[in-house]
């Protein structure tokens, strides 16, 4: 089952693997650079991007500050339009509810759109365990599912995959060898997925925003699969993080100026869908039932505290595209769900920092993430706070704490500082054999301490 708990060694181990694949490195580099450049263009196209970001930040902060009220409003409005709204504290609760809905409808096949919330709760595994067939219908996510992997970018799940990789997995379904040619592969995927849309009993989507005043759910998609998944199956289940609510349609319009621009450099995504309740009596389209599953899954940990701003995140992926660490390490290093700077902050907060202790340190604190965030979350500052928690809560290793203690004592006055410098000069070669010195010098020369420091010149 997908878990947000990350073993301490995961980041380094997975990053090493990604660094070793030249092709993967090139895919990440070109993919992120492309999205980065497109975002800058799209931002520049707004009359006053800074004012829009500030307004978006204000909307998000106000909403999170009064979240219970807006969630209640959202639930009441959607309930009045015939939707079922359920609030789930844990991933387990959410999985069970959705599986129960599927079982109640005797569902054999579930069609999904790309949704990080469903990745987070491990929905696919739960459905498979209940012997329900589930198929991802976003192209990138479909490729990832066929490969038996997890998304490595929250917007472009298959960012590390080449045309050859796509051809390999699609050929297996097709039963014939497909050439690695984009148009042909697209046709094959479309053919394969058409059957899924037509035969699915339940459609599962995420939710980009839930609008409190109307009870609408907003989906931002590009491939058209979102519309098919929410209109053809008898039942629609939408999974929404509890923070994804916005008060009004007007607030939504502000956030919609920034989300597609920041994600893929689009003024508007190809499809922006607003769904307000299931099909009504006089309507011919839409599902008979709509369930909106709101998940907490650790989000309440952030409320009212130093990390509350992280709940403002609109999952655009802009911070991944500018991050020099993500660019080399790849998304898989962070977790099976969220990656890049937003993942390095969010995963330790949702799972508790002791369960993902390497992630706050998976950053050089360069600040590019903070600069790129459309809702101005100070991501690198939050990483710094998490590092502080690791120390203050005694999670940082004893060796590390002892090291900094001794260092700070030695450098607490100029006399002992000079003494430590003399010792460092003398024992530099020895340092290359232990701990940090070894990690430094494996692929770099050890810094040579000058025979005379500046003050001795």
């Amino acid at each position, binding site marked *: 089952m997908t878990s947000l708990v990350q073993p301490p060694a995961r*980041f*380094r181990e997975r*990053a090493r693997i990604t*660094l070793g694949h030249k092709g993967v490195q090139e895919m990440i580099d070109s993919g992120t*650079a492309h999205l980065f450049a497109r975002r800058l263009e799209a931002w520049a196209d707004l009359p006053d991007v800074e004012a829009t970001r500030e307004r978006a930040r204000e909307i998000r902060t106000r909403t999170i500050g009064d979240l219970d009220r807006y969630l209640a409003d959202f639930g009441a409005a959607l309930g009045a339009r015939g939707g079922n709204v359920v609030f789930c504290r844990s991933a387990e609760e959410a999985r069970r509810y959705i599986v129960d809905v599927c079982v109640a409808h005797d569902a054999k096949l579930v069609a999904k759109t790309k949704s990080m919330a469903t990745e987070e709760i491990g929905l696919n595994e739960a459905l498979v365990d209940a012997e329900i067939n589930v198929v991802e219908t976003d192209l990138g996510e479909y490729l990832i599912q066929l490969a038996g992997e997890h998304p490595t970018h929250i917007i472009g799940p298959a960012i590390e995959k080449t045309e050859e990789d796509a051809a390999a997995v699609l050929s297996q379904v097709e039963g014939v060898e497909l050439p690695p040619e984009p148009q042909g592969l697209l046709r094959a995927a479309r053919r394969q997925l058409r059957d899924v849309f037509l035969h699915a009993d339940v459609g599962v989507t995420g939710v980009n925003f839930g609008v409190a005043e109307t009870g609408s759910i907003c989906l931002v998609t590009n491939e058209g699969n979102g519309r098919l998944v929410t209109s053809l199956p008898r039942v629609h289940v939408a999974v929404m993080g509890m923070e994804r609510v916005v008060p009004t349609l007007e607030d939504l319009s502000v956030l919609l100026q920034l989300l597609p621009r920041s994600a893929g450099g689009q003024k508007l995504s190809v499809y922006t869908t607003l769904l307000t309740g299931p099909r009504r009596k006089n309507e011919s389209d839409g599902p008979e039932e709509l369930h909106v599953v709101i998940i907490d899954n650790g989000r309440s940990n952030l409320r009212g505290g130093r990390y509350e701003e992280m709940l403002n995140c609109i999952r655009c992926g802009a911070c991944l595209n*500018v991050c*020099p*660490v993500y*660019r*080399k*390490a790849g998304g898989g290093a962070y977790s099976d769900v969220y990656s890049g700077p937003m993942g390095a902050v969010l995963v330790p907060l949702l799972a508790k920092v002791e369960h993902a202790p*390497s992630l706050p*340190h*998976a*950053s*050089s*604190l*360069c*600040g*590019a993430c*903070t600069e790129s965030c459309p809702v101005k979350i100070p991501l690198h500052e939050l990483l*710094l706070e*998490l*590092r*502080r928690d*690791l*120390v*203050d809560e005694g999670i*940082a290793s004893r060796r590390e*704490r002892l090291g*900094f*203690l001794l*260092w*700070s*004592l030695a*450098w*607490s*006055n*100029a006399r002992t*500082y000079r003494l430590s*410098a003399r010792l*460092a000069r003398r024992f530099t070669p020895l340092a290359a054999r232990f*701990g*940090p*010195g070894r*990690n*430094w010098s*494996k*692929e*770099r*020369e050890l*810094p*040579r*301490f*000058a025979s*005379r*420091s*500046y*003050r001795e*010149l």
Partner: protein
Amino acid sequence: MHPGPRAVSRVQLFATCLGDLVFPQAVADAATLLAACGVEVEFPSAQVCCGQPAFNAGHRSAARRVGRTFARAFSRNLPIVVPSGSCAAMIALRLPELLGCEPYTVFELSAFLDDASVPLEQVNEATEVGYHASCHMLRELHIDAAPKRLLERTGATIVPLRRPDLCCGFGGTFSVRQPEVSVAMADDKLASAPGTAALVTADPGCLMQLSSRSARIGGTPVVHLATALARGMRAAA
């Protein structure tokens, strides 16, 4: 608001720990350049380090203990010049909160030199260089044009880096916690200005990271801005 370098007659020089111990020549070059501006340079002898290594690793009490050496060594009555973007950012933006003290008047070296219109020789005539912006200098202090302007005044031609926004991979303890990613980031940076005489940076942290990697793989020489301005790339290499 401080009136700025033009009105200054004396400054305190903060060598920084890396400057003092690993790159003393760069600090000496910084002192030479400051003297050329006509300011008297004081070197408070009790100085050690601003505490940034511990601060960025989350060890606040260790950072505070070391940061206090800075507060003890430096007077609040004279501006402080720092040949390091990240240490200048630490002193300007973090130290007051960490120590519960009043803010300091602190200048990153190139910002000071640029504003004081430092006299410069044509030591880099017909030399192509790359300039690597330190992240904290760029994103926290917003200093980017000054160092380039100064380099151009020494006759250097600045070749734009492929991705000037990318970090060099140092990041303090990040460099030893994630050595493989850190080195890969350095490699990208070193490869991003092919054919230039050197990469110039105004931060001893970036300088240590990039020059240590460059020395291992025989890559582009990496030079501190102060050295590049005072003696030129050729003298430094």
